């Protein structure tokens, strides 16, 4: 029974906050969410050692799903630490907020474990609906409703594309179980329907990842939603999207047009994200466009699955989740006084007020920019090496050029927070545990850059579990 422990923990968290809404418990919500975050993270570590198959083969717990469960649970834990500082979220809906985040995390974990298309789809929906709702949880009348509506409409369209893709895959193979699809599909890979089906399916996931043609929601949702909500939306769904993209792309490696299409989308995504980020003055919008360009980098791993691209994409997804959580931790600290977005100037004088936060933000942004010796550099290096091995030289060149473009706007933010002087930016001193968490996160980003092999080996063994 221990093999479903991570799911059970997250479900327990969701149920707890559901009953907390009815005022059945006296425990303070912010303490409880910290507790559940730690519980989920430790449960996912225990879960690494148990494997199994459930629900008629629709749900499989193996190295692959547990690797991503570990990532999601740890991201959930960090998000929970940030949630104790709720600044922009409506205080009268705190319990609902925690209920929805726990539920969304549960949906994301279940989507990773599902090896059947319908379960995968439904689990993804379980993760999407709470996120649509929490987008509106912001104090005052800002742009949160507009953001939420855009999020829902884009979500609905990409979900429709995904379902249509599933119907094609089902029509070809006669089954929604990935095991059966893998055994019946190979002779039919030449059929254009297979390519169309898998590309449509990936479209739905590209929306979660905010990759190029599906990224239009990202800047508005990032800046319109409360910073805490953006923290969640920016990190956790990307992990699941990467997992499912690898799962699906690996089944359809025989189709030539799929890696070709993905490579074009990857390059467009990197370029569009970076060019749009250049002129941004708002911190959250800047991070949104940087998310689009990073989605492009994660897609690079998919075109070279067999050449170490899968491991590289998994490594990069975990590093990216960590980096964006670190950046948003500072964003949440800086937020609370602006109607929509946080102007980058708000970070002025951060170095004076809170040196720990400033150093962590600097490391996180350097890592996002891909400067050595951070984890972001290692991740980009592995991705580009794998793409080179797979023969996509032009993607490598585009990736390198984009990295250089990116350095410019990340350095601009670093300069604002380290050098510029500002007296009245109203940073409240961060509590001790938040400083401790930021030191640990900063250290992890550096350590993963110098010794990437532990995580890379874990990703490798996870991918082997998928291939077998």
């Amino acid at each position: 029974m221990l093999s479903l422990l991570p799911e059970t923990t997250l479900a327990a968290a969701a149920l707890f906050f559901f009953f907390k809404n009815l005022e059945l418990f006296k425990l303070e919500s912010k303490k409880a969410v910290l507790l559940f975050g730690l519980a989920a993270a430790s449960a996912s570590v225990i879960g690494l050692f148990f494997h199994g198959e459930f629900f008629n083969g629709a749900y499989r717990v193996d190295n692959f799903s547990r690797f991503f469960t570990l990532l999601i649970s740890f991201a959930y834990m960090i998000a929970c630490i940030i949630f104790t500082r709720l600044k922009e979220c409506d205080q009268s809906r705190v319990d609902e907020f925690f209920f929805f985040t726990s539920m969304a995390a549960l949906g994301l974990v279940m989507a990773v474990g599902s090896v059947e298309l319908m379960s995968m789809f439904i689990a993804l929906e379980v993760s999407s609906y709470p996120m649509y709702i929490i987008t509106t949880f912001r104090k005052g009348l800002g742009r949160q409703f507009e953001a939420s509506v855009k999020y829902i409409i884009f979500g609905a369209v990409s979900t429709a594309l995904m379902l249509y893709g599933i119907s094609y895959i089902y029509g070809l193979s006669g089954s929604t179980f990935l095991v059966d699809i893998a055994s019946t599909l190979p002779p039919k890979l030449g059929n254009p329907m297979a390519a169309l089906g898998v590309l449509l399916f990936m479209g739905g996931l590209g929306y979660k990842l905010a990759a190029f043609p599906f990224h239009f929601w990202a800047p508005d949702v990032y800046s319109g939603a409360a910073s805490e909500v953006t923290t969640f939306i920016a990190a956790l769904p990307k992990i699941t999207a990467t997992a499912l993209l690898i799962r699906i792309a690996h089944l359809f490696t025989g189709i030539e047009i799929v890696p070709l299409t993905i490579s074009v989308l990857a390059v467009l995504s990197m370029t569009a994200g970076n060019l749009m980020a250049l002129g941004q003055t708002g911190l959250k919008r800047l991070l949104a466009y940087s998310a689009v360009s990073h989605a492009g980098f994660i897609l690079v791993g998919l075109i070279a699955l067999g050449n170490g691209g899968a491991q590289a994409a998994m490594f990069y997804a975990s590093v990216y989740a960590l980096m964006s959580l670190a950046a948003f931790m500072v964003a949440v600290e800086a937020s609370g006084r602006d109607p929509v977005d946080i102007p980058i100037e708000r970070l002025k004088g951060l170095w004076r007020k809170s040196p720990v936060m400033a150093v962590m933000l600097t490391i996180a942004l350097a890592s996002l920019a891909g400067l050595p010796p951070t984890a972001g550099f290692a991740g980009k290096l592995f991705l580009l090496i794998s793409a080179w091995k797979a023969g996509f030289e032009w993607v490598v060149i585009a990736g390198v050029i984009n990295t250089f473009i990116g350095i410019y706007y990340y350095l601009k933010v670093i300069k604002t927070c380290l050098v510029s002087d500002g007296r009245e930016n109203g940073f409240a001193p961060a509590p001790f545990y938040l400083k401790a968490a930021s030191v640990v996160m900063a250290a992890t980003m550096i350590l993963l850059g110098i010794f990437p092999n532990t995580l890379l080996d874990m990703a490798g063994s996870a991918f082997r579990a998928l291939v077998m």
Partner: protein
Amino acid sequence: MVQFLFFYFAIAVIGLGITIVNSRNPVHGVLLMLVLFFHMAGLYLLLNAEFLAAVQVIVYAGAILVLYLFVLFLVTLREEVRISPFIEKGYWMGFVIAIAMFITFIKGIQNFTLGEHGAYTIEKIGQLTHTKAMGEAIYTTYILPFEVAGLILLVAVVGGIALAKRERKGA
């Protein structure tokens, strides 16, 4: 005869869909949607899916559309909400993308292979009756998505209340 019926239902569904999207009056839209759902039920009947057809009529036409009408009457929008275009000057882009997708799908459909796939063939469904076959599939093979769908309902219930809740003054 079956083919004639199929084309009638299919064309009606597409035509009604376009009319609904273009209708200015939301009440007209909802009522046309009712007609659309009946035609969808007709399509399901042609596929030997009598249970789905009945559910379509009872749940969608009976329950969901009534809710829609309630919402429309409760939330009286005095003036139309106007928002500046999301993607500027992109009107023709939408057409290009739509036409490209249309052509892709039309080309794709030519590659469909006719015939039966999967565990449930037409004879088997005829033997078991559609309702029984569907019940068996839902409660055995597809038990996980069926159960997890319950979570979506829970989220929707809590979400509905959370969205309706007003922000407390000074809280």
